[in-house]
Every structure is written in C-alpha cells, then in structure tokens.
C-alpha cells in the first residue's frame, strides 16, 4: 500500500509540473510602450488604441486587413496563427514557426532569442528597412524583402529561408508588411491621440460649462471612438491611406542605374584596375568622405559614436528618464525602460571582411552608396529622390563599388586604426 502511494504522489507532482509548463494562452499584440509613454498616452487611451488596432488588424491568431491596405488576406492567414501542418502537408503558422523567436509576436524584434544576437533583430514597427533597392526615404519593394528571406543577412543571425516553398516565402513577406503597417498605424494613432484629441469642457443640459469647486471648468477626456465619431473615423482612414500609399509607392522609388554610366561587361584588367584606383581616390576624398566613418584602412573604426534609428529611439527614451517628472510617470517609464535591450552604437562596416549584409551583387553595393542605408548613419551620395541633386556621379559610384569589392583582397601593409588624435574627445571646458 505504501509502495503504491509513494508513486502516486510522485506521478501527481510530475503531472502538475508538466501542466504548469504548458501554455495555452492565446498570444496578443502588445502596445509599443516606448511610443505610448513618450507621448503621455493615458491608460484609457491605451485601451482604446488597442481596440482600434484590434479592429483594424486583428490578432496574431486571426489577422485581418481592411481592403484599403492592399494586402492579401489569404496569405496572411497562412502565415499567422499557431504552427501546424494539415493532412496535405501544407504548413500553417509560418511566422510563428520561423520568425517569432527573434522578431517577436509584435514584430518588435524582441522575441525570446533576440537579446543574444548582435545586431538585434529588425523591429518592423517603424517601417524602416536597411537593405533595399529604393531611395533612402522610400519603403522596400516586395522583391527586396523576398531577397532578404532568400539570401539571409550574412554577418547577422538572420539565416536563409530559400529552402521554403515559394508560396511560403511570399506569405512571410506579406506578414512582415502587415506587421509594419500595423506598427506604423500604432505610432500614428498614439500621435494622433496626443496631437488632436484634447480635453473638452463638460457641459450641462443648457450647454454651459460645469464648474468645479475652484471655479475651473471640469475637463472631460475626449475618447478615441471611431465607432461613434465620424471625424475620427475619417482621420483614422486618412492616416491608414497615407501609410499604405508609402508602401504602394515603393516600386516607384526603385533606383535604376543610368545605362550609360554602368561599367561595360568586357573591361580589360587594366581598366578594372584604373577603376579601383579612382574608387580609392574617391573613398579617401572630401566629396565622398568614406574614410571619416569607415576608417583610414576601411576597418570601420572612423566614427563609432552614432546609433542607428532603432537604438536611438531607446537611447532618447532612456535619456528622458533623467528629466524630473511626476513619480507616477517616472515609475511607468522605469518599467518600460527595464524591458529595453542595451543601446548599441552603430559601428560602420569593416570593409575588409568581405561580408556584405545587404547583398553582395554589384548593384546591391551601388544602392548602398547611392541611397545610403535607411535607419543608419550611412548617408547617400546620390540624389535623395528622383530629380534631386546628387553628390557624386553614378560612374564615380561604380568606381567606389569596384574599390570596395577589392578591399577584402588588398591586405593593407600596415593596417592602422584611426589615428589617436582624431579619437581623443575635446570636451573639457577651457
């Protein structure tokens, strides 16, 4: 009898432990707290914003898009939800199967494995993408996102997903755009609520303001309620339209290299060597200024004090913690700050490694030089938009491409870090 009771207890303990570890709570999108707290969004507004976003975009298990977005609902359905396969072998829940552990359920780049990665996984919510074929301020095209999934991002933790069937890759591209549009809408709603929804005076039946004991009119919060406020509904749809227009205009932002400036395919080795020499001159020159950040030997040690957009947002938020505000606000800010990952500086690329994150075709490097890299300190040397003024001609940019491609195979005889006098900060007063 004692024998059996002992094992029965052990079994019960195990059952409880196992059951506690099993998570059956449906995941939900959580609010961009840095934006919400920076814009003073109160709890009631936060709830209303989540409701509006839930209505407009659904949940991680049940995505939804208004027809205005132009996204394919069927593809989103395949990408969303828990990961499972049906009888025919079709995979569902692709985002959760492949992406969520780094990119997070909100697409915020804060999944469980994200904090162990350098660089951090991409946060889709600002809608800024580094590796694309379009002007700096434009969105990436579908082809750009597709290429990132197929080639991965070498030099980072992003692997290649080329072994997935094409339809699955398309679904994931669609879902990433969905998360971006949702993230941009979230920020826009938070700012709309701050900017345009003010308090209004409480009025009695006769239309006179109700006064509090001090003689001040009682102020009521204007709720975010598109259901009952046609003005708000119009504004929300207008904001969505602007966001979607940005994505739809991506193809118009593609940088097409001018045919007459593209180097010929049949250059002799001497011509190529001459191009490398011209590229080196430009690299070290005062027009392109590449050395200033990439360092005198291209090791990426020229200027390491700046941050990319995603880290800068966190840095600004953490700096705002030092400002004196009310204890309640400070407590909330501390809570949010505790969830952020350490701020990292944007280190310019070490060009001698031969690792090109955004693609290693000549045109990929050309695009980086032409438009810079959106969201990072890397500036462009070409026109900022069609018809604007550029800093270098395209032929000069192809020369720099040639030089950059030769750098990993040109070991410097004396590789030197940036000269010490350029690194000593002068910040002592007097």
């Amino acid at each position, binding site marked *: 009898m004692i024998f059996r009771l002992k094992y029965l207890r052990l079994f019960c303990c195990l059952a409880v432990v196992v059951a506690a570890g099993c998570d059956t709570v449906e995941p939900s999108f959580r609010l961009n707290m840095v934006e919400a707290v920076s814009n003073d969004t109160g709890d009631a507004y936060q709830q209303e914003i989540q409701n509006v976003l*839930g209505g407009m975009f659904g949940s991680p298990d049940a995505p939804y898009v208004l027809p205005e977005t132009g996204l394919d609902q069927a593809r989103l359905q395949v990408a969303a939800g828990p990961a499972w396969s049906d009888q025919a072998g079709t995979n569902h829940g692709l985002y959760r199967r492949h992406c969520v552990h780094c990119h997070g359920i909100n697409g915020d780049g804060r999944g469980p494995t994200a904090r162990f990665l350098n660089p951090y996984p991409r946060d889709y919510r600002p809608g800024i993408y580094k590796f694309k074929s379009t002007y700096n301020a434009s969105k990436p095209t579908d082809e750009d996102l597709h290429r990132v999934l197929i080639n991965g991002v070498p030099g980072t933790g992003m692997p290649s997903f080329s072994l997935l069937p094409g339809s699955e890759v398309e679904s994931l591209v669609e879902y990433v755009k969905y998360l971006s549009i949702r993230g941009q809408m979230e920020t826009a709603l938070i700012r709309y609520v701050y900017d345009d929804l003010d308090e209004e005076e409480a009025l009695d039946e006769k239309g006179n303001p109700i006064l509090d004991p001090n003689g001040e009119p009682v102020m009521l919060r204007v709720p975010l309620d598109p259901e009952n406020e046609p003005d708000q509904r119009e504004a929300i749809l207008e904001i969505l339209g602007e966001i979607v227009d940005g994505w739809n205009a991506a193809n118009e932002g593609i940088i097409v290299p001018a045919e007459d400036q593209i180097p010929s395919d049949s250059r002799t080795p001497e011509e190529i060597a001459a191009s490398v020499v011209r590229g080196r001159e430009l690299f070290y020159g005062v027009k392109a200024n590449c050395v200033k950040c990439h360092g005198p030997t291209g090791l990426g040690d020229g200027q390491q004090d700046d941050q990319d957009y995603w880290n800068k947002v966190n840095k600004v938020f953490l700096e705002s913690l030092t400002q004196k505000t009310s204890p309640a606000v400070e407590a909330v800010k501390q809570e949010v700050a505790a969830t952020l990952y350490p701020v990292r500086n944007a280190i310019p690329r070490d060009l001698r490694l031969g690792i090109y994150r955004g693609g290693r075709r000549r045109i990929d490097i050309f695009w980086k030089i032409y438009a810079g890299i959106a969201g990072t300190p890397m500036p462009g040397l070409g026109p900022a938009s069609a018809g604007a003024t550029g800093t270098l001609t395209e032929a000069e940019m192809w020369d720099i491409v040639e030089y950059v491609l030769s750098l990993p195979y040109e070991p410097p005889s004396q590789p030197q870090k940036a000269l010490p006098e350029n690194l000593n*900060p002068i910040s002592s007063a007097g």
Partner: protein
Amino acid sequence: MSPGCRQSELGPIAEAQAAANVRASLSEGAEAGTGSSAAGSTGTGWATLKGRFVFDGTPPQMQPYNVNKDLATCTINGKAPLQQTLLVDSATGGLANVAIYIRKASRVHVSLESPPSRESLFDQKECIFLSHVYPLTLGQTMQIKNSDNVGHNTNIEGKNSFNQTIPAGELIDFTPQKEEAVPVSVRCSIHPWMLAYFLPRKNGYYAISKPDGSFEIANVPAGEELEMQVWHESAVGPGHALVLDTPDAKKLKWSKKGRFKIKLGEDEVKDMEITVPAAALGG
C-alpha cells in the same frame, strides 16, 4: 523584467467586442464628416502676435560639444564649441530658440501663401549648424550648404527623412513634402555631436525666438481662436513641449501639451512677455 519566454506584458490588450465594433464601423468607409473640424468660426482681418520669452532663474553653464573628429576644422584654438541646448541672453534674460507656431490655421494671408523666397539656406560651419532651430514653409527648397573644408552628411529624421553627404564647400537642394507637428532633429553622422532642429510647416505662421528672446508672427488670422504650440529642445514636457504653470500661463490656459489659445482683434498687435521658469526647462 526577465527576458525569458514571456514577452513584456505591459499595457492593455484589445477587447474582442470593442475591436469587432471598430472593425464594422471602419469597414463602412469614411462618411463625410460633420463639416470641417475647425473649432469655432473664422474671423476676418489680420493681426500680429509678438513678444519675448524671458528665462527666470540661473541659466546652466553650457558644456562643450564632444568633438572627436576633424579637430583642425571643428575646434577653435583647440577648444570645442559650446552646446546650444539652453541659450539665455546674459543682458536681457531672453530665451533663444523657442519655437512658437499656429497648430492649424483656417486661412493664410496672401503674403505667406507663397513664401518670400523659394530657397532657404541651411548652412554649417566649423562643424556647427548655423541655424540651431530651422523652420521652413512647405514649398520652399532647403539649400543645405557645407561651408567647411571637410565633408558633412546631413541626416534629417522624421517624415521627410533625408541623409546625404554634403561635400566641402558645396550645396545640395532638398524639398521636404510633409509637415511635422514638432521640430525633428538634424544631425551629422561623421560628426555626431552636431545637432539642429528642423520644423517644416504648411504655412508661415511660425517664429523662432531670437537670442534676446523676441519673436514676431505677422498677419495671423484675426477674430478667431488660434491654438499656439510652444516648443523648446530642453523643455521637460512631452515631445519637448514647453509647459508652463506660472500665473500668467494659467490665465492663458496653457495646456500640459505646451499649447495655449488666443484670439486677436483685427489689426491688433499683441505683445506678450512670457516668463519661463527654470523648472520648465529641466532646471
């Protein structure tokens, strides 16, 4: 917050029924709203709003910028230039670089419909942006100039994002398309200490206070309520809105978002002296 398997659980989640209701109402599409959402009627005529921002307190000592590149160009006699986050005129106590602008103007005076000059210069010299707070009317072209002998890249954040290398001694044109609600930062990546603020607006109803704290916005719509936004880069309000709680500010019903409303009579010249206590700027 332990990073583990559970993500951050701050903030609310969507309520299913409320979300469904919102979805139904948005799917109907936008009806024409109840006319314009402008609060109040429009008046006639034009007025002038001017005044001075005066700093009340001991202005903090400005620290030098952290100059770590191109020392020959960016330092003067080996000394880095001082930061410009809170500039107070020692003689008059005037607070410089306060941005004050009308949030939504119902009508625009003819003189401001087409700005005085299509081009507007934005220069940088000795590794400092010469206009620390730089406003622009949409339609104008920003001429970004580099008057140094080293290259700079001008990195403008926000809705009109721009990041291009400006070679030494040259000028690059940039025409922003979108209005910003508050000034956005302009930086250089090669010289990361460089900082300025950029405010593109749809109309010319803005002013940046001069070194003596004075500002003037001419030809503002008279006879109607104007909502003014006030901003300073060191202000502790949300988005650096300048939030004041002095008795004068309370009379103006100065909001927690750095806004106040004012109604001017036709041809009135309103002169306001606005005192800014040190606490409002983080003092």
